């Protein structure tokens, strides 16, 4: 029974990793860009959501809002922040250097944005963990000894829906085709009539949406937010993406669940600080035997740094 309960907990934790890992894998698969601002975008949704629900909109525009509108403001904020990153890291360098941009440059720039967002929030709100109050903290299903919280099940279903919808969009719609063409070769896509410059912001909007949703789901599930909440999830989501293989949406799902489950099991059996060794050890061993991850495309993420 303990085993099943841990499995359930692992799946719930994994569902948060999935959304963030998909955000990572999209930017790297389509733009060949490891976007380190993703943990900060995730944190922004939670922290901005909290501050709106606590203080109200800035400049005295409104009273403190309820949890749902606050989180909506939070998600909007992460989408806008993501577009800001697009403007100053990706677009700028592509205009200036074209396809020959060294991959390390946007990467370093995105690390700069990670610091900017994280320390702006730290400077504004301090480093304490804040309680985020929602009306459903105690909604649980109980089967025999098994406890399943309803918000968590909802969020697992929600993130799976998002991911399935996303992969449908990538496969079937015009925008999805354009995105995949850009991923193959930006220059050829331009020749085929894809407006790459208009497609790229879509990737960043999707990134902001995915991270914002994941951050909101976290805030609702665990009823707390903190400026550091992105670091933990961000590193675990990177691990999930690498285990699944860069650029593969289904790989990110598998990786997210594997990381979530192995984390809860190792915490259960070996204590709280062992999760780090288990997850990263798994990743290192996997990379030694399968340098592309589980479902990784052969050519993605291998570019020279």
């Amino acid at each position, binding site marked *: 029974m303990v085993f099943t309960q841990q499995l359930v907990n692992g799946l719930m934790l994994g569902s948060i990793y999935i959304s963030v890992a998909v955000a990572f894998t999209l930017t790297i698969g389509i733009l060949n860009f490891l976007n380190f601002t993703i943990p900060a975008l995730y944190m922004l949704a939670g922290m901005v959501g909290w501050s709106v629900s606590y203080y109200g909109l800035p400049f005295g525009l409104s009273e403190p809002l309820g949890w749902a509108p606050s989180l909506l403001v939070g998600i909007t904020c992460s989408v806008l922040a993501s577009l800001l990153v697009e403007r100053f890291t990706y677009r700028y*360098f592509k205009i200036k250097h074209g396809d020959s941009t060294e991959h390390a440059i946007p990467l*370093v720039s995105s690390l*700069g944005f990670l*610091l900017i967002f*994280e320390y702006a929030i730290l400077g504004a709100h301090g480093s304490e963990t804040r309680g985020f109050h929602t009306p459903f903290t105690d909604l649980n299903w109980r089967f025999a000894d098994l406890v399943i919280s309803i918000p968590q099940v909802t969020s697992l279903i929600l993130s799976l829906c998002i991911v399935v919808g996303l992969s449908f969009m990538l496969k079937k719609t015009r925008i999805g085709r354009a995105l995949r063409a850009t991923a193959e070769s930006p220059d050829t896509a331009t020749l085929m009539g894809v407006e790459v410059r208009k497609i790229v912001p879509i990737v960043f909007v999707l990134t902001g949406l995915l991270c914002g949703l994941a951050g909101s789901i976290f805030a609702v599930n665990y009823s707390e937010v903190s400026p550091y909440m992105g670091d933990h999830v961000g590193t675990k989501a990177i691990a999930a993406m690498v285990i699944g293989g860069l650029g593969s949406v289904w790989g990110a799902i598998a990786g997210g669940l594997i990381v979530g489950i192995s984390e809860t099991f190792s915490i259960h059996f070996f204590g709280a600080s062992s999760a780090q060794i288990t997850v990263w050890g798994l990743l290192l061993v996997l990379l030694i035997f399968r340098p592309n991850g589980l479902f990784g495309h052969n050519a993605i993420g*291998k570019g020279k740094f």
Partner: protein
Amino acid sequence: MSGYLSGLIGILGINIIFAYSIYVTAATGQLNLGGAGFQAIGAYSCAVLSEMFGLSIPFLLLLSTIIGATVGFLIAFPILRTRGVYMVLATFAFAEIVAGVILNSDSLGGPTGLVLSDYIETDVIIWSTIGVVVFCFYLMSTRIGLAMRAVHDDEAVADLLGVNRRAVQVGAFAIGGALAGLSGGLYALYFGFVEAQYFNAFLSIFVLLYVLIGGTQTAWGALIGASFFTLVPELLRMGDDWRFFIFGVIIVVMMIWRPEGMVTRQAIDRITLKLFPVVRRHG
């Protein structure tokens, strides 16, 4: 020397040596996002050896350098199987595992850390730093340095022209490990205390940023980058959070303004030409 100044020089020296450990691999075209792991290994081996065997200080520093080099040499083989982003994340995974192992082993003090009874003065750090800087400048001026640059610019062409690519890459990891081990040993002896929380992911990220923003083209990059990012925050001296905010802004602006780093080969050629109009630099 005032206590504040000598403390600043101490941390500056440690950061410069640490930055060179990452620079050596970056100059061969591999980004190492696991610097904190290598430094932690140096610091902890220094602390443990000092407590268990009571060795003398030069011997302690030598041993932490050798241990760092050995680990760098051994880890190079699995890590070099991966490429690009995968390699960056494999080195990152290595650092996370080292921190995790330290946190979980009671003999290494776990989360509480270890206290050392030995200590060193600032002048040891100054001399080590000078030694490391001279060594790296010399290394980059030799044929090995040329081979490293060739591998950085194009692996396949370097291979075709008879550079032993694998040896250069593994060697770079070993030298990088050695320097990180040395900086870790100096850190442990200078502060008299090591704890796993210091060697976290942000330390790895920062040291990589020192190097990339300083520039990987010439050996000046790591020196300038590490000095800039150790000294400028001291000058900014405001609330801790806003200091890092400005650090982030500087990084973004720097990448727009000088994407190849502060010091590039071109910039050095221009300066030399201005200072010594007759002397022509080659390469």
